[in-house]
């Protein structure tokens, strides 16, 4: 049975050019949703925008029009710039080696983007008395990050606070706000970073004994946008194969 409540709706997916974001776009389209896909990285079907820039976000709102589902998938552990829009994923950085530029860039890419996009689109959802917002936290914020570092964990932890606060603030307007906290998800960029093969023992240690796929995450996004997510709000959903169970 298809999920109820998706067909004919409109969605905006950020970070849509690659990995998890692009799987979400494909999945939502298969459900009959009209999707506006945006990214800082140019790719087919992508509306270009630097979501750390409020002017770009405002422009995006102009082209996107009315949106029912907002999926904030933009972000990641790498330092993204307008010149280098899809840089390789770095390895772990120890506290004393996190410089201010990396700290600020990763907070901006993961947390400021979600804030600016929510601030732009929430009033439009309020006016229409309907909305579903799905943000992206991470296992890094749930159990701590030993693969990236304090900057990424802090940014993703911020997403959880933003999500809970917006759930309270937007709930009276029939807008749900939730976060997904993915665990180890095998994307092409993660494999390039050498994490794909280096972790056989780790993968074996997971209760489900496999890495996650971008489709595993896209399924949960679809669920949260559907009837099944109608009364779920303020939640952070761990999607990690049993790696960490949440609070």
């Amino acid at each position, binding site marked *: 049975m298809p999920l109820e409540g998706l067909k004919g709706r409109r969605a905006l997916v950020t970070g849509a050019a690659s990995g998890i974001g692009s799987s979400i776009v494909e999945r939502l389209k298969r459900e009959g949703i009209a999707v506006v896909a945006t990214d800082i990285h140019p790719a087919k079907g992508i509306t270009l925008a630097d979501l750390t820039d409020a002017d770009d976000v405002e422009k995006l709102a102009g082209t996107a029009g009315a949106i029912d589902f907002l999926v904030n998938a933009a972000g990641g552990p790498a330092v993204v710039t307008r010149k280098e829009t899809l840089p390789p994923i770095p390895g772990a950085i120890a506290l004393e080696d996190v410089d201010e530029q990396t700290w600020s860039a990763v907070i901006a890419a993961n947390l400021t983007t979600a804030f600016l996009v929510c601030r732009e689109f929430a009033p439009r959802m309020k006016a229409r008395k309907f909305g579903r917002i799905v943000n992206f936290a991470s296992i890094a914020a749930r159990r701590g990050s030993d693969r990236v570092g304090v900057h990424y964990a802090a940014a993703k932890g911020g997403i959880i606070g933003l999500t809970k606060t917006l759930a309270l603030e937007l709930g*009276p307007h029939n807008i749900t706000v939730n976060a997904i906290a993915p665990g180890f998800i095998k994307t092409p960029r993660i494999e390039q970073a050498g994490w794909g093969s280096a972790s056989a023992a780790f993968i074996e240690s997971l209760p*489900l004994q496999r890495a996650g796929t971008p489709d595993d995450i896209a399924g949960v996004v679809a669920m949260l946008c559907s009837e*099944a997510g*109608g*009364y779920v709000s*303020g*939640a952070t959903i761990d*999607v*990690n194969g*049993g790696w960490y169970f949440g609070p």
Partner: protein
Amino acid sequence: MKVAIVTGAAKPDSIGHEVARRLLKEGMQVVVADLYEEGFSALRQCLCIRCDVADSASVGEMVDKAVEQFQRIDVLVNCVGGSWGITRQDLLASPPPGFRGLANCSLEDWRTIVAANLDAVFYSCRAAAPHLKKQGGAIVNVASIAARKGIPPGSEGSSGPYAVAKAGVMGLTRQLALELGPHGVRVNCVAPGVIASGRLKRVLEITGQDHGPEGPLKTIPMGRVGTVDECAALIVALCTDDTAYMTGVTVDINGASYAA
């Protein structure tokens, strides 16, 4: 064809009833395990088995019958629960008035409520696990917002032992996720806030329309209670491949009442 067992699905306005209906629509064979035989006639497409989930022998027989009939179990949804209307004797009783905390709880009440809400989940998971492990599958348990935040003194319709037992369900869910994950069986639970089931209707009859079992309804940020459809849709999603990489998770469904 996949086979699902749903406990606590016979009462027509229950979450379990809607879960059973939706699993049928997913194309599954559905087995309903319940004490409320009067409800079986509305579930003709299901194999309905009279079962006292608080009695391990009764649960064992129910699972045996299901396997005898359909040869396999793919999904187990444990919906039975509550603070009242949960034994053979008081199946149709109204909620007892007054606050039922822990400090004023009789041993009899403690045992009855823990048996129906926690022992029952243990019995059915333990009985179904060998069959689920054969080809993989999913278990969904129903916890409660009560496990997250307790039952506020002065409220009516729920109970202290219920809050404790539902927290136990969350722990049971995690433990079984570790044990059954390597066999391809996912184990998750939902923690509903106030849902507009028949049970809520009965509570509101004694508390007035503005007080649910977990406190005043006007404090719910979404400004409404949840629907049985929403809760059942979430439970069914946790049975399907949309959630193939989730296990050990408690999904809160409470209109932003409590963010864990």
